[in-house]
């Protein structure tokens, strides 16, 4: 892991990581959107009134039993979750890289940022 022992190299690796995540996530979202359109292209749309969308990974059985429409939405949702995971992965990467640099201060700072992210992703109301 010697290649990480330098801030500018660390940043370059982070840039690649971020781009990789975005490409992967957009591919999933695009594929999901195509299926979504195939299924309901001619339906009417209305986002005028707010009805909370229940976002979440479905259980495998539910996906297999579900209609094509639900599955298309599920692919988009997976892409969005992947996208949100991308900057989180960058912070995880920073924790590891700073720990390898034996930079205690910045390992702690990165862990603090990660803690806020994890808290809001899993426990925030």
């Amino acid at each position, binding site marked *: 892991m010697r290649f990480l022992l330098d801030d500018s190299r660390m940043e370059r690796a*982070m840039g690649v990581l*971020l*781009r990789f*995540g975005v490409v992967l996530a957009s591919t999933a979202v695009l594929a999901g*959107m195509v299926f979504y359109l195939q299924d309901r292209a001619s339906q009417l749309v209305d986002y005028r009134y707010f009805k909370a969308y229940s*976002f979440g990974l479905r259980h495998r059985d539910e996906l297999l039993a579900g209609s094509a429409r639900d599955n298309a939405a599920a692919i988009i949702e997976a892409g969005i979750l992947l*996208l949100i995971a991308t900057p989180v992965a960058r912070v995880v990467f920073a924790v590891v890289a700073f720990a390898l640099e034996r930079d205690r201060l*910045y390992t702690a700072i990165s862990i603090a940022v990660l803690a*806020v992210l994890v808290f809001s992703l899993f426990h925030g*109301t």
Partner: protein
Amino acid sequence: MTVLVFTLLVFAGSLSAGLLGALTGLGGAVVLVPLLTLVFHVDIRYAIGASLISVIATSSGAAAAYVREGYSSVRIGMFLEVATTLGAVLGAFLATKVPTRALAMIFGGVLIYSAVLTWRSNRSLHLEAAIDNPSSDALKLSGSYPGPDGQQIEYKVDRIPQGFAMMFGAGTLSGLLGIGSGAVKVLAMDRIMRIPFKVSTTTSNFMIGVTAAASAGIYLRRGYVDPGLAAPVMLGVLSGAVIGAKVLTRARVSVLRTVFSYVVLALGIEMIVNGWLGRI
């Protein structure tokens, strides 16, 4: 409107927003939410949900290009992300409590402020640059960036507590309105902390994605992110931003920037009026 027509129009609108945002440096989300609410009559909660997702995409997508230039500082970014992520959690929490018409009016205020910022001179001159602030070294925030002749230019960071506080505010705004609030982040780094402009803008880009991720979980649980809307918005803004970054080096943006700032101003007024009248 059918789903197909709506999706295509939203994609085209988001692409334009992303393109203009990248060319003018104002960011795509700032016109995206008014576009969705005022033109497409989308509920503002769905609009800020989709916008926040697009913010994560553009920030992360642009990162690789910014890193190559060697200006951004991973330490300044990580240090200030402590403030922006905490602010973002507060902002997202507030977004679920504040009535939608108030959200619209706050958004309008931010639009007007962004327009005014573009009229003022963008670069501060840093006449008092390289102030010797001992905390800058203690927190390992001091750094260097490549100058025009290839030499490394050293810099230090000043007024850290004030900058940190402003970053918290930038995060709150981001979580409340689903925007990147890059302008406020740059303001905090460039004007308050006296970090060189190029370092401020590139580091801000990195921070935007992490900040937005901190409010995303709360948005998802509150049902603000609808896949049918978020998909064309995210793909549109991202494509626009990528195209914008490609033509940016060749385009003359000063005229565009001025025109765009008036559009932003008009949208801001319209958001406030519509919010006031309870139409949003």
